[in-house]
């Protein structure tokens, strides 16, 4: 369904409300059915091998724990650059995603590998902090060398209908990012409805997001297939209306190769094959990478691998 992308001035909350509430509603049953239908596609043998390698290149290898030590971040970076030490044909991952105070460690560990460091910022995961704090958080991460910033939107303001506040925050953070890419986390698990997911997606895109991301990974449900479908539709519609390309990053709950391949099928069918690149699609995950590596080994050796042969992370 075409989305009215009329030029509008986001100067008032009213203008934003008129635009966002003017978006067509999401057919909830339809979205679920379509996501389910796409999940039944059979991807086997050579296509599966391609898909696994593609998924590995799209992984944002993530560690976002209070217990993250510099050592753990360095170990993760080593894994990002060489996911399977026993098989050097495995591609590198898309990026490493850490908390802002671990950016310097990650940048140092990844020097020379060509892998970027993504940092969550803006009082992740709740986002409940004054704007100055969020901007300081962002600037510090960029100054330490983060090439991508994952910000969270103010869900409280969004649900209260204060779209202008959400919009202005994204614009301000985008400015603070400078040349770093901005991923905007919608935290769809807290947005309650698919209509809200669509509105938040368009709001973030209009405010200048380079990527829209489903979740922090701290709230369940996270990246469910219908939610990703709605977000992919938003970037597709935005592209149809303006020609601009915005990326999508599902995060949280994608643990198996099967889940990841289903996401890729959805990207191809909804947004189109142009989105099948790490520049426009990423998967935020930590345990997924080991499963991808195991599936890859299974395809090349014909025998089932076990988790004992892969790193604990």
């Amino acid at each position, binding site marked *: 369904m075409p989305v009215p992308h009329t030029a509008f001035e986001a100067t008032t909350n009213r203008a934003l409300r008129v635009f966002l509430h003017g978006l067509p509603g999401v057919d909830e049953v339809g979205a679920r059915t379509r996501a389910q239908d796409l999940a039944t596609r059979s991807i086997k043998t050579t296509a599966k091998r391609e898909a696994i390698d593609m998924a590995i290149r799209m992984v944002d290898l993530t560690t976002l724990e209070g217990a993250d030590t510099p050592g753990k971040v360095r170990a993760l970076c080593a894994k990002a650059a060489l996911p399977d030490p026993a098989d050097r044909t495995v591609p590198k991952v898309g990026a490493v995603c850490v908390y802002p105070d671990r950016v310097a460690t990650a940048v140092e560990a990844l020097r020379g590998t060509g892998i970027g460091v993504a940092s969550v910022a803006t009082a992740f995961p709740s986002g409940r902090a004054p704007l100055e704090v969020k901007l300081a958080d962002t600037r510090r991460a960029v100054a330490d060398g983060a090439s991508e910033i994952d910000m969270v939107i103010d869900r409280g303001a969004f649900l209260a209908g204060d779209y202008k506040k959400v919009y202005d925050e994204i614009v301000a953070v985008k400015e603070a990012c400078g040349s770093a890419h901005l991923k905007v986390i919608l935290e769809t698990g807290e947005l309650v409805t698919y209509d809200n997911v669509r509105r938040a997606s368009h709001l973030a895109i209009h405010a200048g997001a380079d990527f829209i991301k489903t979740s922090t990974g701290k709230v369940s449900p996270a990246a469910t297939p219908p939610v990703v479908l709605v977000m992919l539709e938003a970037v597709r519609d935005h592209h149809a209306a303006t020609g601009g390309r915005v990326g999508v990053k599902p995060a949280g709950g994608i643990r198996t190769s099967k889940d990841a391949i289903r996401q890729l099928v959805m990207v191809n069918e909804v947004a189109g094959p142009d989105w099948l690149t790490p520049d426009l699609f990423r998967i935020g995950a930590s345990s997924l990478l080991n499963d991808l590596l195991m599936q890859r080994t299974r395809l090349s050796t*014909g*025998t*089932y*691998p*076990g*988790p*004992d*042969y892969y790193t604990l992370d």
Partner: protein
Amino acid sequence: MAKQRRTAEAPRPPRLAVRKTYKLYLGGAFPRSESGRCYPVTSTDGDHLANAALASRKDARDAVAAARGAFGGWSSRTAYNRGQILYRVAEVLEGRRDQFAAGAERAQGLSRTAADEIVSAAIDRWVYYAGWTDKVAQVLGGANPVSGPYYNHSAPEPTGVVAVFAPQGAPLLGLTSVLAPVIATGNTAVVVASESAPLAAIDLAEVLATSDVPGGVVNLLTGRVPEIGPHLASHADVNALDLTGAGDLAAEFEEAAAATLTRVLRPGPGADGGEDAWLDPDPGTARMTPFLETKTVWHPIGV
């Protein structure tokens, strides 16, 4: 509308038969094979008894994943608690002994007396290994004398996921005799039941499912050893193989298992026999030790 009362002269309609669908036992649930296949099971006289699920490579994969998932919880229970649960299996089996005796009579053409003897022996086997759970550590472990100021202790620990090829000719007592020692010590099991007589195994799974044995500790596949076996033997997440019922393929499986340093128990005497071969009331620790690893701890004296 008032309910119609059946009058005396109207004949009762014949009752519809309730036939059991024999399925797999994976992770505490009874799913069909993911392949949707099944195969006919006949008695030794050739009568059709039922259709059993024909497990595929992917069912075996799922079974290993379920067994791996259950290993942490099962192995960290106290040995005493595992003993209680195994004893519970015996209790529940005792309550259903008629069903198992009738099954053995029908499937294997045994006399009722012989069938009863087999069922009794199977129940006693669970009690036997229930007793062993908290004694095996004393028998196989201990304090070692060392020439230095150290306490030195060895203790047996379960190896992990064990793939068990149950004896082909001994569907109940043979199966019990190979399964109980594996789980008694804290391992979890993926069992490939006798191909020609798998029904007793699924009946036994129903007993396990109602005896506080946590889901995933025992996973039961019915199907063909040549189809499922190679994938279990080469699986890197399987820690040990019991090849009792693997027949001619045992050597091939052992070779595949070597690639991932999997422990192997070769088929012993009686592996090809019927239930009678398993009647020895005191099988000892011989079927437990192959699936245990010895952990040795050194501790300085006086610190």
